[in-house]
């Protein structure tokens, strides 16, 4: 009997601890700030094995003057979270039409970048040291386009709150090397459901808000949640840029060979559509 009772007690104890575990699971699985930012980085910049999209950028000045940049951007990952290749083909404005831009992105060191100028049939190597440089004159920097590695910043989970309709983690990121970037602090609102950034606030060294990123539209494409409309606003100058991604395709089996000088000089339809 004793044995039986003990046994029963044992079962009860086991059941109880399982129940506690089950109840405690959401708390135990509370991701760390580093985990959130790593997942956000993968969701935003590594969705699928490859991707292609027609991007229309609207550059709007404070007085409402508008410039349009239209391009086809293709990406191919060599390793999830690691090396990537980007190919950009410009459709407009006319003075950059047919220009192509190739980036081999490596984690932990400078990208290799090549620009092809069709009027001169010239492939030019581009210095890639400053990732904060504007991408095609927009408020998006190179880093905003191809991602900033989470390891470059120290992250702290500040709170959880609603961003619009969505629940988000609010993470503060401080660059480990302050000299290489133009922000001293960044706040990110990361969507709990998709891990995509819904909003980012960049603060300068004086602690003032400098730039604000907003993910305006999220769509699920082939199972991958994607920010298909994004805005970056320079709140200090009033200038802002909107990027809309259309005809987005994932996993088109874009060969890594496409991301080479051969296709930079003569891009195939896969990279210009």
């Amino acid at each position, binding site marked *: 009997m004793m044995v039986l009772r003990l046994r029963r007690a044992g079962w009860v104890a086991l059941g109880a601890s399982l129940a506690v575990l089950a109840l405690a699971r959401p708390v135990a699985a509370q991701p760390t700030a580093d985990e959130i930012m790593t997942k956000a980085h993968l969701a935003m910049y590594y969705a699928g094995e490859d991707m292609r999209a027609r991007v229309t950028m609207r550059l709007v000045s404070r007085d409402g003057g508008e410039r349009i940049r239209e391009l086809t951007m293709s990406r191919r990952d060599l390793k999830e979270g690691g090396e990537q290749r980007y190919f950009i083909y410009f459709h407009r404005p006319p003075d950059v039409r047919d220009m192509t831009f190739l980036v081999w992105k490596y984690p932990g060191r400078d990208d290799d970048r090549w620009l092809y100028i069709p009027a001169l*049939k010239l492939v030019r190597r581009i210095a890639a040291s400053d990732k904060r440089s504007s991408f095609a004159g927009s408020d998006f920097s190179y880093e905003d386009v191809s991602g900033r590695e989470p390891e470059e910043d120290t992250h702290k989970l500040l709170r959880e709150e609603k961003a619009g309709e969505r629940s988000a983690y609010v993470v503060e990121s401080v660059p480990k090397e302050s000299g290489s970037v133009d922000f001293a602090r960044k706040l990110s609102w990361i969507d709990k459901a998709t891990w995509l950034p819904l909003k980012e606030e960049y603060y300068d060294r004086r602690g003032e808000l400098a730039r604000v990123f907003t993910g305006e539209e999220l769509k699920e494409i082939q199972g991958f949640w994607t920010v298909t409309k994004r805005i970056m606003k320079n709140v200090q100058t009033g200038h802002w840029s909107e990027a809309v991604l259309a005809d987005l395709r994932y996993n088109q089996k874009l060969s890594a*060979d496409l991301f080479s000088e051969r296709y930079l000089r003569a891009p195939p339809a896969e990279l210009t559509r």
Partner: protein
Amino acid sequence: MNRKGVGGRGSGVRRAARLLKLGSLVVLILLLSPETGAAQGLPVRGFLQGAVSGRVGDPEPCPTSQARACRENFLIGEERLQLELSRSWGWIGAAGKLDLFHDAVDNEADVDLREVYLDLRHGIVDLRIGRQILTWGVGDLVFINDVFPKDRVAFISGFPLEYLKKGSDGVSVTLSHALASLQLVFVPHFRPDTFPEAGGRLRFFDPFGAITARHTDEPSPSVDTTEIAGRLFRTLFGWDLALYAYRGFFHLPSLEMESGPTLRFFFPRLYAYGASAQGNILNGVASVELGFYDSEQDRSGTNAGIENSQFRYLLGYQREIRPDLTVGFQYYGELMLEHDRYRAALPPGVPPKAAVRHVLTARLTQLLLHQTLRLGLFGLWSPNEGDLFFNPEVKYNVTDNLWAAVGGNFFVGSAHTEFGQFEGNTNLYAVVRYAF
């Protein structure tokens, strides 16, 4: 100035050249035909451009050969329409660029077929047939292994940079492979550089300025005179590596005196071999290029009229020192291989060139107003020969379709130096372009 052919062998090649021209016409017709073109919503693209360039300063004396240049204040005054068409049907493509322009200085209209070619792609092979612009090497306005024709007159006068390059009429074959890629170019129809000539708008160093009887011989198409250029290239550990070889001709003429007296300009044989590397170093891009110019017709160096064999080398570095501000520096050297014999052979009164021509260049580019305003400065200076060229330019994209640029080409130095001879062409220019 009359031009006649030399080396008349190989009517087959001439036929090939004619076929090439015919082929160009076919490409144009293909591009324009309603079935393949307009009916599918063929986009006609291009630009309308107005350009003017005026001479500032005019050094004395004025040689007879340059009476026109000494009189003329305008180097450029023109309106230009460029039409660009391109189509592709899977593995086959075609493209063409045609310039129609009115030259207000001479009040004449003309046509310039900038490029027209057919592209074929199959497996690892890319074939391009027709008039095409070719650009190789890693130099910034310094050319070692880029042996393809250039329009030096356009460059000196103040045309947009793209007009420095001229198309080559030939065939390019590229074989792409993961190990290395190989591009071979065959050019049966030689096109020389466009260079300042007697009777033209540009001033230049002319030791025989009093002799007005002149003619130019160009190599005529034959198997033997077909230019062949090869480039073997690959990227390794982030470095773009290339080997080059060329068999053809100097694109700038040599000259000899004939009875009369008449000056004969001709293009001596050239074999060139070289290599280049370009990659990231210290947050910037470093470039190295080497080239050996084998001047077959004057290997001994005893003919002062023909370039000696040379060794050319280049070191370059460029870096974005802060967002939208890029600086670049180059050191370039041109080593004459038989300088003693060259000096001994030089006619009296002709100033000798140095055994090594050292050249330093600097480029500064600042982009402003969301990259719509570009301030550029390019400078080139030879510390040992003393000549200097610099080109400041301001370019503003007024709208997405319209840009305007103003700048100057300044040449300084003694009359016999490479850039100093153009002192009398120092100019200010303005270009406005509406692209559609």
